[in-house]
């Protein structure tokens, strides 16, 4: 039963292909709980929740200072660069007007007060995040507390998540961000070029028992808490007052609510 060189090579090739194939099958379908792996030991002072959510109280945002203070607090803390060219722009939280924030709901008879109110926009930390589904490496993932987070070291920069996000919440590091950070904060890592980033609901502050930076700076304009907790302030507002969300028809279940009734009962 001797075999010649040709047969040997053919059989060796088949065995190798089989081996590679099966090892892929094993590793490919092994359930990797990335979200669990990404969790670090919780400290006693860390804030916990089942589903973090935010309410934006529109009655509290009146002056430029109200808005800019919030944006500055976030962007400084998270080393968000300031690019001179808007094409390269990175933003975690910013403002827009009513018609652009709630695209699709065009109403020409709205009065100036509503039309020109500044709406704070940020990642909605959706309950069904399309970006998490799209990511081919699980670099963006949903934590058990509802926060949609990013692993900047795993992201390959394919930007599928940016196409998937219906809220335009994600930014990409088209250039090296580091030279464009005015004052480097030691609280949060800077990023490399070629990765996507966005608001993370300040999970690093929550772990230290602190509220998100924007919430702290907002003078009560941004209310943050556990939507799953019936006694939390966010839950009370969402269940008793009239709030709106961006593009609810898409079924992503955004966790950012806008209280537009001026704080009064609607």
């Amino acid at each position, binding site marked *: 039963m001797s075999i010649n060189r040709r047969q040997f090579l053919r059989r060796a090739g088949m065995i190798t292909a089989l081996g590679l194939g099966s090892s*892929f099958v094993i*590793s*490919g*379908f092994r359930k*990797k709980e*990335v979200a669990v792996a990404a969790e670090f030991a919780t400290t006693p002072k860390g804030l916990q929740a089942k589903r973090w959510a935010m309410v934006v109280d529109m009655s509290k945002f009146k002056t430029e200072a109200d808005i800019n203070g919030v944006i500055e607090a976030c962007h400084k803390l998270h080393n968000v660069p300031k690019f001179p060219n*808007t*094409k*390269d*722009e*990175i*933003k975690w939280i910013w403002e*827009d007007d009513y*018609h*652009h*924030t709630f*695209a*699709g709901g*065009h109403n020409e008879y709205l009065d100036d007060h509503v039309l020109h109110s500044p709406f704070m926009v940020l990642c909605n930390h959706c309950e069904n995040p*399309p970006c*998490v*589904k*799209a*990511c*081919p*490496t*699980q*670099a963006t993932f949903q934590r058990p507390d509802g926060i949609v987070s990013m692993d900047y070291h*795993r*992201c*390959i*920069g*394919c*930007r*599928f998540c*940016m*196409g*998937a*996000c*219906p*809220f*335009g919440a994600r*930014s*990409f*590091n*088209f*250039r*090296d961000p580091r030279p464009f950070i005015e004052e480097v904060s030691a609280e949060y890592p800077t990023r*490399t*070029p*070629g*990765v*996507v980033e966005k608001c993370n609901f300040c999970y690093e502050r929550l772990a230290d028992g602190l509220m998100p930076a924007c919430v702290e700076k907002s003078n009560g304009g941004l209310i943050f808490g556990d939507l799953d907790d019936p006694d939390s302030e966010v839950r009370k507002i969402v269940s008793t007052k009239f709030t709106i969300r961006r*593009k609810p028809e*898409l*079924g*992503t279940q955004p966790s950012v609510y806008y209280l537009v009734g001026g704080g009064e009962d609607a």
Partner: protein
Amino acid sequence: MLEKALSGSKRYWIWVTLLLAVIAVGLFAYMNQFNNGLGVTGMSRDVSWGLYIAQFTFLVGVAASAVMLVLPYYLHDFKKFGKMVILGEFLAIPAVIMCILFIFVDLGQPMRIMNVILHPSPRSVMFYDMIVLCGYLLINLVVGWTTLGAERKGTPSPKWVKPIIYLSIPWAVSIHTVTAFLYAGLPGRHLWLSAIMAARFLASAFAAGPAILILLCFIVKRVSKFDPDPGVGAIQSLVKIVRYAMIANVFFYILELFTAFYSNIPEYSAPLRYIFFGLDGHTSLVPIMWTATALAFLGIALLVFPTRKNGAALTIGLLSIITANWIDKGMILIVAGFVPNSFERVIEYAPTLNEILVTLGVYAIGALLITILYKVAISVREEKAS
């Protein structure tokens, strides 16, 4: 067999050198992008995919179109395609390689590309796209090489290759379907959120792909002693496929227009209004899209009327169809998917010179691979004929 690509006429070597020069320029442009980031492209926060992903989309179609030869030849015993099938398979291989390269050059962190395999994500369509594309490449390499090798020795193809050939037929459909699913499953991108996207992709692929193949056959006939269509009407059969596929493609597009405009839902029609008429004063794509529309109808007309039998008119018709499809799929579909953006603002995109050079470099790599593979196939045929 590869040694056959190492000997050729002076003309052959001039062509290869030219391609290598374009590849070198593309590589240089890519190094610039690699060092400075994707900021050297025209892409932005709002239009986050551009020329690269559009080329990828177009070329998946070209790759899939080999099935238009394989299916009639192997399933219906359509003998006319006998001499051409190998050219179809040898077009699919470079097309898939170009697809993979366009994905690669589009990555912000290309050195991490293996993360897609290290951290497989079965919920992501990208995961399946990787599997079907790599699988299709492998299938065509195995089938093309084995059948040509057997032909060279004058023996029938080995039996084990038959099931792989049959597998290649649904597999070709799958690569373009999965690619359409990349776009058609995203909430909030209204131009893409269409159930007919995969059908449109296949129709446009089966028009543009065989059209490219026919033009390649014309070139092969001119530069070599091998005739892929020795008076059997293979090319005219392929012309019929191109014609009906293109008519289906235009029909599908009109279906999209009807739903968007008659329903009058602003979000659905906004990207189409941007493409055809301009939006908020932004009109950069309008002349390009109308050019594509005119070329699509011109191409169909030239392929319907007896002009299809005239060499020059046929060439113009095929070029019109290829260009129309390239504009639609290799450019506008991807870019306009992001316009208007999630905030209903119009932010336009235009590729930069660096981006265009990288794109040309990838196309030159594809052209070089086609040249080498076709050289091998033609040499084997010439050898048999003499």
